[in-house]
């Protein structure tokens, strides 16, 4: 009987130890996920408006600007975000080191030599915002070009200015059009934040990997999936609601 009791106690202690560990891992992952959400939110904040500007650039009637922007979008969409992250993070330092070694520095070289390495988080935000702005710009462009010429002409004949035409008539129709591809891209962004790990930003994947080194635990890495899933679930519900809200009319 005594022995049985000891066994139960033992089980309880083990159980308690697992619970403690689970809570500890959860708390650590939550901290990492906070960083994930920060990358996510700041990228959206920068890329949504920047994408619109790039979209206008790629639709410009001024051919050199149009082709410059199109080439830029091609490069950004044609190379991996991970590579862009590495270039932004390591590039400035390499350029500065090369410039400092030049024998006869002119003004430009001196300026290049003064380049400093970005903070890790800054490098992440620069590369993420540029990358996602390029993807968004193509979605915006598709949305804007899907609006019939007649809508613009109706506005023109009614004496509306270009700004009134865009903000009062075109934009709402564009938003309705781009919600489905946009939600796709935004959900991808949630998962792409894990790339920040490559330059040692303490997001959720990094914080889970820390347990491999410290405690030899692999399951926290698997556990991160739940965080992504729940957050993307919430986003899916949100976008569904917005789509439903805009469903009161058809083009």
């Amino acid at each position: 009987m005594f022995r049985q009791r000891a066994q139960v106690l033992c089980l309880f202690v083990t159980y308690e130890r697992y619970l403690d560990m689970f809570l500890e891992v959860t708390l650590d992952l939550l901290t990492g996920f906070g960083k994930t959400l920060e990358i996510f939110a700041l990228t959206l904040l920068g890329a949504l408006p920047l994408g619109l500007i790039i979209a206008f650039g790629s639709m410009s009637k001024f051919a050199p600007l149009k082709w410059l922007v199109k080439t830029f979008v091609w490069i950004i969409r044609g190379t991996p975000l991970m590579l862009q992250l590495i270039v932004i993070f390591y590039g400035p330092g390499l350029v500065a080191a090369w410039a400092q070694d030049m024998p006869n520095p002119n003004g430009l070289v001196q300026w290049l030599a003064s380049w400093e390495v970005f903070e890790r988080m800054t490098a992440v935000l620069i590369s993420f915002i540029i990358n996602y702005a390029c993807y968004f710009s193509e979605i915006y462009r598709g949305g804007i070009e899907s609006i019939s010429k007649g809508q613009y002409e109706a506005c023109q004949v009614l004496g509306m200015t270009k700004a009134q035409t865009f903000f009062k008539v075109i934009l709402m129709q564009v938003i309705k059009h781009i919600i489905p591809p946009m939600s796709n891209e935004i959900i991808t962004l949630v998962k792409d934040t894990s790339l920040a790990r490559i330059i040692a930003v303490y997001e959720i994947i990094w914080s889970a990997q820390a347990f491999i080194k410290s405690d030899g635990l692999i399951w926290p890495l698997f556990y991160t999936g739940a965080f992504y899933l729940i957050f993307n679930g919430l986003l899916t519900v949100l976008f569904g609601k917005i789509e439903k809200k805009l469903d009161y009319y058809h083009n």
Partner: protein
Amino acid sequence: MAILEVRDLHKSFGSNNVLKGINFDLEEGKVLSIIGSSGSGKTTLLRCITSLETAEKGKITVNGNVVFDSENIHKLTKEEIRKNRLSVGLVFQSFNLFPQYSVIENVTLAVKLQAKNRPDYKKNKKQILDEIDKNAMEILAKVGLAEKRDSYPCQLSGGQQQRVSIARALAMKPDILFFDEPTSALDPELTGEILKVIKGLAADDMTLVIVTHEMAFARDVSDHIIFMDDGVICEEGTPEQVIVNPTQERTKAFLSRFQQ
């Protein structure tokens, strides 16, 4: 005095000369119909007068204001062109209503934006907006759609949508209202309601210019008819002269296709 004067108007798209010197006047309160086969330049003429296209040569005067003058083209700023457009209204073949706005919002949107330029707008905002809504409801009643004020374009039939677009153009109080084949996108059984609305406007002494393929309607409603062919005015006169007793061979050939 003529409310609309068009002088020696030329327009081409690339090497395709669409308008080859158009001249005509229109008196206030009169109804002009422009007929002719597809590609004869009717729609381009309308688009040039409403500044949707810029002509190459010629002069257009609406109610004493020079809307276009090839001799003086650089003197017109974009802002002036925009203001000039306010004196003309255009009803499109394909309606071009704003799908995200209700019927009443479609009719009042541009008028309300326009009202923001009034010096007393801030002081009397509510009163001005109420006035615009009231005026819009009167116009909607005139086109028989008062009870549809809160519907959306996608909930309306083609004929109803076209009547909303007529109401939208009327709300801007244009000097001249232009119609670009207003019934061509409609099922035959729906054209009657549009023609009835246009007849009502003609009876109210609005100045109307109608591009149409409805010969019987053009004969009934018009004071003056222009038959266009290959970028020029081939024949013009009263409906009696042009539709009943045409003198030009091309007019006769065109009309005979409608009588079959």
